[in-house]
């Protein structure tokens, strides 16, 4: 029974990673860049929700909405100001810029909100029991898993069925050819950043509901783990981000429970290294074969 309960909380944690990993993966798939500031957008989302709930006294859903709007605007603005001018630059310049943006956001929030940890209001506590009380499942885990599955399904439909989704896939394959179809590639990249950043806000709230402390570097570790999850599943692939996130959450939780809390990160990254040695493109990464 203990195993089952770890598994469920692992799935919950993994769902949060999956939602964050989606942001990394979609941006990578379309803009071909690693947005290392993605974790800090989570931090911004957490602060936005925190102040909306405490200072403005808003209910959770309204705060979540505000947080999503702020993160979306922030993501699109960062892309416009920091990344767009580098469209023709080497990928190394873009990577360094992204790391710079990450530090900028962390320091800006420290300047604005202070470095002290703020306690996020308790939003969804409580649990229900199964098997005559032998297994206790928190509502939060269930909610997180459900939200993650819904996001994944909606996004998959969006990418495969809508015109914008098809344009996104075209941009991800060949931007030069996409432009010749009349697709505004800059607009598609903006939309991608908007979606990824909006998802980061949802992840921020789910994360703060589990670990209720808000501080300027809050997004770094979840960001790095979710990035790992995206690579693990195959970066650029939406189902890959989903699978990678869930696997990472489960491995981390089980490692903490059965092996060692201190070693859990080492174990997670060891698994990543092994997977990449066997499948360099990640679990669901595409091996592109094109006939010429």
């Amino acid at each position: 029974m203990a195993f089952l309960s770890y598994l469920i909380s692992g799935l919950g944690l993994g769902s949060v990673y999956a939602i964050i990993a989606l942001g990394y993966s979609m941006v990578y798939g379309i803009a071909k860049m690693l947005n290392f500031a993605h974790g800090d957008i989570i931090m911004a989302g957490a602060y936005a929700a925190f102040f909306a709930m405490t200072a403005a006294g808003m209910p959770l859903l309204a705060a979540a909405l505000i947080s999503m709007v702020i993160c979306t605007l922030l993501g699109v603005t960062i892309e416009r100001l920091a990344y767009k001018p580098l469209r023709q630059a080497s990928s190394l310049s873009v990577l360094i810029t992204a790391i710079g943006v990450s530090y900028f956001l962390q320091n800006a929030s420290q300047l604005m909100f202070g470095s002290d940890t703020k306690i996020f209001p308790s939003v969804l506590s409580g649990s229900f029991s199964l098997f005559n009380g032998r297994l206790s499942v928190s509502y939060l885990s269930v909610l997180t898993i459900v939200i993650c599955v819904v996001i994944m399904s909606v996004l998959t439909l969006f990418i495969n069925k809508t015109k914008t989704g098809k344009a996104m896939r075209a941009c991800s394959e060949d931007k030069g050819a996409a432009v010749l179809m009349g697709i505004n590639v800059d607009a598609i990249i903006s939309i991608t950043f908007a979606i990824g950043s909006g998802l980061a806000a949802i992840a921020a709230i789910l994360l703060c509901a589990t670990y209720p402390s808000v501080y300027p570097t809050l997004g770094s570790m979840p960001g790095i783990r979710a990035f790992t999850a995206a690579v693990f599943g195959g970066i650029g692939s939406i189902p890959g981000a989903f699978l990678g996130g869930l696997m990472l959450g489960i491995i981390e939780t089980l490692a903490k429970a059965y092996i060692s809390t201190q070693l859990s990160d080492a174990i997670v990254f060891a698994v990543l290294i092994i997977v990449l040695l066997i499948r360099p493109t990640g679990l669901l990464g595409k091996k592109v074969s094109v006939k010429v």
Partner: protein
Amino acid sequence: MLKVENLVVRYGMIEAIKNISFEVRDGEIVTLIGANGAGKTTTMQTISGLLKPASGAVYLDGTDITKIPPHKIVTMGLAQVPEGRRVFAQQTVLENLELGAYYRKDKNGIAEDMKNVFELFPRLEERKTQLAGTLSGGEQQMLAMGRALMAKPKIMLMDEPSMGLSPLLVKEIFRIIEDINQRGTTVLLVEQNAKMALAVADRAYVLETGKITLEGTGAELAASEQVRKAYLGG
């Protein structure tokens, strides 16, 4: 229809196109022939807006389009079949064709053009649910052409459509180019296969290291001593 005036294009310090001028009139097939590195693809990419010229102008129906972003130029009636086909390998044939009509809103017109494309390329209809990456080279070329037609262009730019195809397929592709032209689309064709290109072209220009060195009707150039020596193998 299309007029290129004193066009200069540079890659850094290198001048790839050195002040060229030419025009394509309504309903014509015009071809630019030249060796590898003569600047043919550079010229095409500058016309479709992917490259910005250092100086000079490109007029589409009288409007200078050198300052217009490439995705807008498509909506003005200029479509390009890029060198190397560049179909979206991970999408189906049908999705590729739909992307060709991306900017259009007229559902009926799109359906009509889809029918025309399938009439022109029956092979594409047979394979419409297949991923474009699994098509043969010739089929991919047909898809790239069909995709450009879906934009309902007034003028279609084709960059090396015969590249890498068997002689039989090359013939087929050129027959289709004539067919497309007869259905009312003006064509600007860039080719290394000078013989075939000159045979279908109303007029032709010879491009050598970024300069136009010769021009005339397709038949005139095919008969010219200079062209025969350099491009037609004697």
